[in-house]
């Protein structure tokens, strides 16, 4: 038996539906319809211009047998390992420093958030140029002769550095908003108790900011697992290290748009979504251990 709704509850429900309708309809049309198409395509053998035939799980079999695919999966995970922890710690540091009482605060802030207003294409260009093995300024400054972007060991590190550099400001904005929600009275109380700054950080700042930190972490992880643009612009398709750097979505791009193999490419996407799903679920389970919501 279904519980009958009171008139007020019914009205609330109508309002709710009305309010979520634009977003939900938009998502269904813009995102879910393409997702379903992709899902179907992943079980199809595609020819160019949309024609396709059912192909069972052959794309998946082919995918799981492909060393290139596993390499791309590993590259994607490695990219996350290289960028997410360092990026978030640095962003937190920046947010804390900017939250302190300093002079020229707005000047510093402007500088740290600078990469946010730059077209990624411009960012990639200048970093490529700085990393250039022959003429790059980075080698000159460090006194090294490393082929940053064309050596299979360093290329992904170089990409990670650029990723961190360009996301610091973004993450710091988010964390800063969290920091500013912490009431000053907590710190005053701690100071009276004689707690050191380090202790204050671990006993007040970190727990209080943990919900924001969690959101930042989730966002950063998701976007790192989906990374494509940055690597695409840093590493050309004529670069011999491509197999050692290409992420899953880069592989997808090449299969779908360069090789015209949309069925196989769709299988890669489904796998990527699956991967992101797993990581996110782990995050949500793990958060109970460290995220503090009762503030």
């Amino acid at each position, binding site marked *: 038996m279904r519980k009958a709704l009171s008139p007020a509850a019914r009205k609330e429900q109508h309002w709710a539906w009305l309010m979520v309708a634009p977003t939900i309809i938009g998502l269904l049309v813009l995102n879910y319809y393409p997702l379903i198409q992709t899902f179907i395509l992943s079980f199809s053998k595609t020819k160019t211009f949309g024609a396709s035939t059912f192909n069972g799980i052959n794309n998946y079999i082919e995918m799981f047998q492909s060393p290139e695919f596993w390499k791309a999966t590993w590259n994607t995970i490695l990219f996350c390992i290289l960028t997410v922890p360092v990026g978030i710690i640095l962003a937190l540091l*920046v947010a804390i420093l900017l939250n302190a009482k300093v002079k020229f605060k707005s000047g510093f802030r402007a500088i740290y958030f600078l990469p946010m207003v730059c077209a990624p294409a*411009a960012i990639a260009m200048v970093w490529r140029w700085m990393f250039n093995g022959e003429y790059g300024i980075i080698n*000159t400054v460090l006194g090294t002769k490393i082929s940053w972007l064309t050596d299979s060991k360093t290329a992904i590190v170089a990409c990670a550095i650029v990723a961190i550099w360009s996301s610091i400001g973004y993450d710091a904005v*988010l964390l800063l908003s969290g920091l500013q929600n912490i009431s000053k009275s907590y710190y005053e109380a701690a100071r009276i108790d004689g707690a050191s700054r380090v202790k204050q950080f671990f006993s007040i700042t970190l727990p209080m900011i943990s919900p924001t930190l969690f959101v930042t972490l989730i966002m950063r992880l998701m976007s790192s697992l*989906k990374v494509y643009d940055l690597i695409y*612009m840093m590493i050309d398709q004529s670069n011999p290290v491509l197999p050692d750097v290409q992420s899953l979505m880069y592989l997808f791009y090449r299969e779908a748009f360069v090789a015209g193999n949309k069925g196989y490419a769709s299988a890669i996407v489904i796998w990527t979504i699956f991967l992101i799903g797993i990581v996110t679920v782990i995050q949500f389970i793990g958060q109970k251990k460290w995220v503090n919501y009762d503030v």
Partner: protein
Amino acid sequence: MKTGTMSRSRGVATGLTYFFLIVGSLLMIFPFVWMILTSLKSLAESVQVPPTIFPAKIVWSNFGEALTSLPFVNLYANTIIMVLVRVICAIVFSSMAGYAFAKLNFKGKNVLFGLVLVQMMMPSQIFVIPQYQMLAKVGLTESIFALIFPGLVSAFGTFFLRQAYMGIPNEIGEAARLDGCNQWQTFTKVMLPLTGNSVAALTIFTAVFAYADLMWPLVVNTDINLMTLSSGLATLKGQFMTNYPVLMAGSLFAMIPMLILYLIFQRQFIEGIALTGGK
């Protein structure tokens, strides 16, 4: 005695704060400096070994070449319109949905919110071709609207603002209802204003997302006059390959006005977060 160590340790802390801030700033700003210096060099000088720091002879022609290669005025106008409309859509629709998901009870809530969450996991590249085909069907490719299209709704914005509404105690809404506000009034008059800092943050994020979108404008619009700065710059790379002085000059053209806009508005955005944040 005690106060002495206190102030000394505070002095050290302040010194360290400045030290890290300045070192960090230098690292953040250096690529831009290098962009400017490179844009003023000749191609031959730019590939000298070892590199020169300052251009031996200032070459302005790189800017001329970049300027004639891309219609920057159009790129600006398109980018600004696209970012603006996407931001507005994100704020309006996501506020409504975020509020409903956080504060109202309705059938299908969990399923629908699941749709929002799962969308955030999907890589945007998979939408490109299907969305293009939808627009093509109604003859809307090659237009400004096409640039906006994928950003009409925002799953991230909905999620983000739902979190913001979750943080507002239920009692506030209940009080408003007791005062005779209907659902819509409770939302617009009472709850919405309380999310000011989150809306400000969402504005920044949406703008950055939209601004960074590279592939979509390239696919949906062919005419260079209908592209955005990001995608326009990508075509510059197609033309000048590894001729960095011209590429850097083009990048600067793409950035400087945005930078000015940003410097003007960064107070509003970031201090907006600061002001409304201290609840």
